[in-house]
């Protein structure tokens, strides 16, 4: 068996479904979701968060509106402490690369993530290292996702730019890469560039 995640601190979620191109993870804390476009890693697999949801732990039990007599939303959770144990927050992430012995690769890994593998939000230095190449954009441009790829690409670049020494230069370089990838799809390119600010 291959147990990659020996790191015990800083984990935010656990993989509950996995395939080569994506995985789904359940957060340890209700609403402890990484933002859209965040770079996360589980073991040697790197992925970008493209979807998140919070729902009932059991499919047959739907949440009911409870706040009619409460002043704040926080009061609802205070007067029904069990809610935090009956709801779960999950996110889905698209695989954009992996780390092998030699270096960081921005193409699909040989193995998908493992079920119950811990998921970590990448730290600024990891994001910086990953953002050193834009090869992952090719995966995102061609990924079949339930949200528009343009939204995800823009969100991930915004997230990555925040940890760069020169965010603007990073976004300009990313824009050039996208212009090359989407040379025949002007509307898509425009849509992404319009969301980078």
């Amino acid at each position, binding site marked *: 068996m291959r147990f990659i995640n020996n790191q015990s601190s800083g984990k935010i979620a656990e993989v509950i479904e996995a395939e080569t191109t994506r995985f789904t993870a359940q957060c340890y804390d209700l609403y402890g979701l990484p933002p859209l476009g965040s770079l996360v890693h589980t073991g040697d697999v790197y992925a970008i968060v493209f979807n998140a949801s919070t729902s009932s732990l*059991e499919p047959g039990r739907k949440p*009911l509106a409870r706040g009619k007599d409460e002043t704040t939303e926080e009061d609802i959770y205070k*007067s029904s*402490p*069990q809610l935090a*144990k009956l709801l779960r927050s999950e996110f889905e992430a698209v695989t954009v690369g992996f780390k092998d012995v030699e270096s960081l690769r921005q193409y699909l890994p040989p193995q998908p993530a493992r079920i119950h593998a811990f998921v970590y939000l990448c730290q600024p230095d990891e994001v910086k290292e990953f953002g050193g190449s834009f090869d992952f954009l090719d995966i995102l441009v061609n990924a079949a996702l339930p949200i528009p790829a343009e939204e995800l690409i823009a969100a991930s670049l915004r997230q990555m730019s925040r940890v760069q020494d020169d965010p603007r230069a990073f976004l300009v370089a990313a824009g050039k890469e996208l212009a090359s990838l989407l040379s025949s799809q002007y509307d898509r390119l425009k849509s992404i560039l319009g969301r980078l600010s």
Partner: protein
Amino acid sequence: MSLDLTKVASQVIAMISGLKDAREERRQRLQFALDTLNDRAINIEKLKKKIAASRTTWLVAELVEGLDKRCPAPLNPADFTVIGSDGSHIDVDRHRSNRCYLINIGSAVITYGSRPDAVLSNSPRLYSNDEDLVISSPDGDREQVVEGAILGIKRSVEECRHLAALAAQLPADSDCLTLLDGTLILWGLEAYPEFVTQSLLNDGFLACLDRMKQLKADRRLALASYISFPRSTDVVNVLRVVVCPHDVVDSDRLCRTCTSRECDKVQGVRDRDLFINLLENGERSALFISPSKIVKERYGDHRVHFFYLRVDDEIARIEIPQWVAENDRLLDLTHGLISDQCHCGQGYPVVLAEAHEQAVVTGADRENFWELVESSMIDEHLPSPGSAKSFSKRTRWI
């Protein structure tokens, strides 16, 4: 073959028609019962004596606070904990080769106030040892197999045991209500031999109640059980005693020859019908004492008291041991916290609903359990013959 509803439909229509015809008569009986309950002329002390002297085949509640008392929900403490436990079981299947049963206890510990928190858990346990499968008399001459109704009672004991264990973990000086689903009275044991009652009631259920009573020494700990939509008539039977023209009610000797049959005027009325008309939302009724034989003979200082509580459009019966009933603070804690639990839980206590969710064993779970047992036996090369009847039910053919 599924049930042929077309053959049942006409019978259903006849049943509903009968109910409709009897509606006016039921209304009159209920009104008579309510008028009797509210009768200011009733001398409660005399009534208590008449109840004590009664010899009836039906259960007549003993009075503590009169008949028509109504108490509004008291204020609850700012910080408190409510604990509930509930259970499910997989019974012994005599058509399977391996005799065993499983009890799954679900529990919910919910803390409210400045540090809200919830712990929901379940604890399934498989019973397959000889001492688990039978209860033996001390001299070893007699045995009672644990299955069916007895397993249901054993499950009640385990629910109470879990509740006591969880209550013991609470910090001292805290306010806490522990809640069971159903009755505190283990009625079913009345049909079984003494050694079975001793094992399950005295050494089991009542021992757990003893533990909880001890725990209240350094914390405000109340214990109650919650009966939703009760069918009991203990208080209505008090009204039968009230209207009985005889000085001493003796149902075996006098009722057969009684010509006035005044008590028939409350026939068919249930306690919940009375109290849904008497109580406002959140109010509790007067306290009563269960007249059941097993309680009188066995429960000692856990003697079961009860009151009715209005929760929106439903009446619930709340049963409490004597040591809760006689402590005003614990009685108020029980009343207030159950009202609050029902308010938060859409009419049913949240801790019991969550404990049930943790405990529930579905039909699919049962199938999976037996598959696991049988496949594990096969893995170990142990024979697992089942009955032909069981095989026939599982493998249907034409």
